[in-house]
């Protein structure tokens, strides 16, 4: 049975392991890019200036620590390559604000213009229907963008009236189950390549889509975000958090080892006691 002070001790140690590297930052471990992250990076890197990509902000504030740094890194990379970016959110209404903020911040930093170089389309319910519709006509589905401005004369949507045949890549940053419908109703019938970023929880689930080649890159959790930051050459929140992450992981392995030693010691003592009684 876990005594309450033991629980508080574990919490305290985890808190120290998280807070101390953030208060006293250090740069020891490089975040070497994995093949899955390179899949997304290399595809965006290989596009020509003036190409258009879609970045789906399919997460809300509850997954923000993992996926928002990923979003910033992908946008920074895309704008640096002079690509046009169409942002969209089909996960839930609360994600739209995050998309608007990221596009405005990074777009502003890179001198890009809202409506010309990028647009955030916002949220619509019924994901399969929306994806199918925007594959053939974006403006019919989105008459206004996330800021309420009409899309009819928006330059970026004049160049890209529909996804099919117009966009060169699609990245879904997903907190939930949105990667599957984007593959089934978007990428497969639309014929455009797709990559995905997801929370670490979903990484194992989505790996089968990467293995089958239905998506050509997969970024999982804070670690992948830190790898992308490293590739883009601008370290941010994910890289800062990976120091804490690494220390907490080492601590958890230590807890598991200590817990097992205590468990087996208690078991052997109990058996010895029972043997003595017999």
């Amino acid at each position, binding site marked *: 049975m876990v005594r309450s002070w033991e629980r508080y001790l574990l919490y305290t140690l985890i*808190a120290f392991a998280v807070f101390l590297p953030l*208060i006293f930052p250090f740069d020891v471990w490089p975040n070497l890019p994995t093949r899955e992250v390179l899949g997304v990076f290399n595809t965006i890197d290989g596009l020509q200036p003036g190409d258009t990509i879609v970045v789906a902000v399919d997460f809300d504030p509850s997954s923000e620590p993992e996926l928002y740094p990923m979003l910033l890194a992908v946008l920074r990379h895309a704008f640096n390559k002079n690509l046009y970016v169409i942002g969209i959110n089909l996960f839930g*209404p609360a994600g739209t604000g995050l998309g608007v903020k990221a596009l405005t911040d990074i777009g502003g930093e890179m001198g890009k213009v809202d409506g010309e170089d990028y647009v955030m389309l*916002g949220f*619509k319910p019924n994901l399969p229907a929306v994806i199918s519709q925007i594959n053939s006509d974006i403006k019919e589905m989105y008459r206004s963008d996330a800021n309420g401005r009409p899309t009819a004369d928006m330059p970026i949507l004049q160049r890209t009236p529909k996804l099919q045949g117009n966009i060169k890549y699609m990245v879904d940053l997903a907190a939930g189950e949105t990667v599957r419908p984007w593959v089934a109703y978007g990428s497969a019938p639309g014929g455009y390549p797709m990559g995905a970023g997801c929370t670490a929880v979903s990484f194992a689930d989505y790996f089968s889509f990467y293995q089958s080649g239905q998506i050509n890159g997969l970024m999982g*959790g804070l670690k992948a975000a830190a790898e992308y930051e490293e590739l883009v050459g601008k370290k941010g929140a994910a890289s800062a958090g990976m120091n804490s992450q690494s220390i907490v992981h080492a601590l958890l392995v230590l807890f598991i080892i200590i817990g097992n030693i205590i468990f087996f010691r208690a078991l052997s003592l109990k058996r010895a006691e029972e043997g003595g009684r017999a």
Partner: protein
Amino acid sequence: MATFIGTWIAAGLTLMILSFLYRDNPFFRFAEHLYVGVSNAYIVWLVWATIVLPDFIGRVFINLDPAKPWSPDYWFLVPGVLGLIMLTRMVPAIEWMSRWALAFVVGWGAGFVIGPVLNSYLLAQLYASFPWVNMQPYLGAPASEYIPALINAVILFVCVVTVLVYFFFSYEHKGVIGGAAKIGIWVLMVAFGASFGSTVMARVSLFIGRARFLVQDAEPTGHAFSALLTLGLLIAIITAIIARRRQPPAGESEPAE
């Protein structure tokens, strides 16, 4: 100034939520209820402003952009009315009407979904499980690449088949079927282990996000002040809770020795 105040309200609410690590308490409850209320209100407003207004009212009843010519599109009344009769579930006497809308959603959904789902979730995944498909890119590759890829492809195939056998309940799990099912359950355990490891990483990441907010975003010019203040507030909250719990309820005398 508004950003500064907003940030510190967020920091205070984060600490209130984290106080649950000690135990359930009024600070946690307050923050939890505030979160539920505010997020619901935000979502209701967003759905109204970005969906109902432009896609229903703005297409049928009102011209939202008076600078441009507009004519009502009465086809949008069909989904609009279907959506409204969904709400009849709240009135028991006419609850049956909501089944029309549900029938439409289920019928449309089944017809629309079956093809792409079979294609992308079943056939494409099944195709990618076969070793000869996975080995296509490695034909003619040097042995140092070919052999590891072959081992991977065979392991993948064996895992898929044994897990499918584990979920095959038409025959008793004995003999060859039993052996394969046993391997299948080991494969499942490894998959659950991988998922659990990833889940731990995800949860720690969420805590790191909040911790980063407390020590860096809440005090952009330096960390020491916010870190100390954060720690101080946390200790103050926990001390207040402990002190409150140790006090005997009003009107009750000290228990007899």
